[in-house]
């Protein structure tokens, strides 16, 4: 399975040998989780892969327990979530861990994605690895959206109504898709039931794609902060114990803010309207998605003008395109140098992209009519941010590779490590 099977597992016990001859599971585990040679210069941004695996486990375990007590029925769902918090043993904590866990999971995935964008982890030979990652991210978004609907509060209900309605903008097949998603003409009990079913299904598909993601990682091996491939054995350390212990340390540190939110302020990341039971007759004054969807929500809302096609469809195209464009990043970035550390011009555009993403997040939470600078409103300035978001991928990354003069690369990981004080590696 892996090209890095440097050490072969030789079973000594006859039973182990008998088993290994029929299914080489122990040898496979040893070569992928223990002996796997990993670049020795990985920084803490690389620990988020392990953190994400941990978070997926947390969400699946807490989610399975919650599903044992939850009632997917439009009349009962809201109270059943409350009863979990009140009367199920430890229910208050399990529910809070699951709900705040979604936010922590997305925080970690954003760090992971932006790390990949900075250090060029999507470049050859890791394109498939990157694409699988984007698929995981898409599945995460769908899972989080379905999960948010389940408590059947006002925001749950209206998020379901608004997001499913996006599909109605697609010509011809839009309406059938809308009705298929909702299970009828409006969001109602059938919607809740199918969303519950899908919310239970998708995490296991995510887990399967994560296996592929790790497999695709183990074929070329890890990228690293200098972006120079592993050349010899002394560039690497075995995954265990070096990275198992470093990742475990990172997971424990990550759990500190996680516990802070789960125990002390589980609702601070949510919206108080979601403690009002869903009511199709009352529209909340401000429908806002969870924070992790805000940048894309801002992109959707920024397209409020007709250009050749209707603004609604155009908005959906930009909304979908803002995520789908990630699939093409490996071929849009023409620079041969992987790591942003050695790309003086790229750095500027990259950090501007990060700031722009955060700005979009902020715009997504504001009223479109809110004035930002002089007479210009959120609706106006967010268009600039949308332009930069797409220009980064379509114009800047392709052109930078041609015109930028990268700094000289170290010959190897070991060389860069030894000369560390001189050449700072971000």
């Amino acid at each position, binding site marked *: 399975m892996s090209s890095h099977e440097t050490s072969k597992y030789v079973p000594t016990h006859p039973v182990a040998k008998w088993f290994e001859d029929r299914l080489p599971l122990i040898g496979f585990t040893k070569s992928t989780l223990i002996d796997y040679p990993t670049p020795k210069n990985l920084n803490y941004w690389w620990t988020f892969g392990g953190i994400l695996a941990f978070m997926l486990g947390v969400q699946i375990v807490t989610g399975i327990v919650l599903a044992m007590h939850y009632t997917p029925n439009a009349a009962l769902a809201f109270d059943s979530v409350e009863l979990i918090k009140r009367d199920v043993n430890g229910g208050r904590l399990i529910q809070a861990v699951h709900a705040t866990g979604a936010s922590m999971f997305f925080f970690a995935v954003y760090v992971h994605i932006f790390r990949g964008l900075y250090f060029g982890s999507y470049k050859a030979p890791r394109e498939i690895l990157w694409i699988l990652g984007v698929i995981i991210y898409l599945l995460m978004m769908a899972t989080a959206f379905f999960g948010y609907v389940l408590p059947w509060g006002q925001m749950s209900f209206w998020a379901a109504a608004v997001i499913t309605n996006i599909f109605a903008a697609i010509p011809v097949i839009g309406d059938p898709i809308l009705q298929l998603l909702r299970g009828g003409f409006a969001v109602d009990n059938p919607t809740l039931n199918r969303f519950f079913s899908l919310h239970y299904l998708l995490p296991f598909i995510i887990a399967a794609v994560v296996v592929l993601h790790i497999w695709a990682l183990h074929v070329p091996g890890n990228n690293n902060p200098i972006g120079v491939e592993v050349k010899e054995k002394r560039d690497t350390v075995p995954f265990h114990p070096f990275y198992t212990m470093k990742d*475990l340390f990172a997971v*424990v540190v990550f759990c500190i803010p996680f516990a802070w939110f789960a*125990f*002390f302020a589980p609702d601070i990341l949510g919206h108080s309207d979601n403690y009002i039971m869903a009511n199709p007759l009352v529209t909340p004054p401000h429908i806002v998605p969870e924070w992790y969807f805000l940048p894309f929500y801002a992109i959707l809302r920024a397209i409020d003008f007709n250009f050749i096609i209707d603004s609604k469809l155009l908005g959906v195209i930009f909304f979908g395109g803002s995520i789908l464009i990630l699939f093409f990043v490996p071929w849009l970035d023409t620079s041969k140098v992987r790591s942003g550390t050695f790309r003086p011009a790229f750095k*500027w555009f990259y950090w501007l992209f990060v700031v722009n993403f955060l700005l979009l997040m902020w715009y997504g939470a504001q009223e479109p009519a809110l004035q*930002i600078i002089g007479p210009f409103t959120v609706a106006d300035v967010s268009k600039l941010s949308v332009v930069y978001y797409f220009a980064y991928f379509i114009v800047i990354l392709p052109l930078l590779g041609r015109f930028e003069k990268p700094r000289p690369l170290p010959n190897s990981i070991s060389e860069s490590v030894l000369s560390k004080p001189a050449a700072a590696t971000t």
Partner: protein
Amino acid sequence: MIQLKTIFAAALIGVGLAGGAIAAETAAPEDNTIAKQHWSFAGPFGTFDQNQLQRGFQVFKEVCSNCHSAHLLMFRNLAEPGGPGFSEAQVKALAATYEIADPDADGGKRPALPSDHWPSPFPTEKDARDANGGALPPDMSVLAKARGIEDKFPNWVFNYLTTYAEGGPDYIHAILNGYVDPPPAGFQLPEGKHYNKYFPGHSIGMPPPLTDGQVQYAAAADGKTVPLTVDQYSKDVGAFLMWVAEPHLDSTKAAGFRVLTFLILFAVLMWLVKQQLWRKVEH
């Protein structure tokens, strides 16, 4: 690289602050910002004040529950740890004074038991609306979490550090103290409504529910008394409704402190393990 990042961070914060300031400015003409109150249960170490919960329960029982339901509250909750701290005998006696509609009982009614839900004042939503001029008194089970106050940009960042989750009680306190009679000149108040400066749209169906001296508190066990004012009543009932919405708040916060202590110690140990391992590797 640090320099570059710092510049961008500074720029971002600058933009954010500017946005926040502008947002605050547009909100300025009406001074209806809800003041945050001091709550004993705020922050990571907060706990409910048992005397306050008992007083708040009295306000709820004598005033609110005449129109508002709280169907997730059960009588037994009132005797559970972290709550108002009534004894089981007290709760049993209290429950027995209420009647529960039960189709299995003789005559369709029976006295309530501690395991019963708090009885709703009206059998259906239609009845509730008819008795309240068309407005529906909202259920109070999670009301304290279903309301909040809005913080402008730079302020809410600090809420993550202070774990501010008391927007609901703050809002409830403000509404109960926000009645203005007569309404400001030029405000068209619909028939049967009341002017409240903190209510969205200002026209609220609920008449001012509290007046000074309306609820007679007994002195606490330690002989302490509190003023019998609307301000005090609304603080007490705000705290009580927070407990109704979050009955395990005290034990959760106590557990959170233990868990965080453990995590921090564990993190230190893991860091030492990691350092020891990596000491011999140039990296």
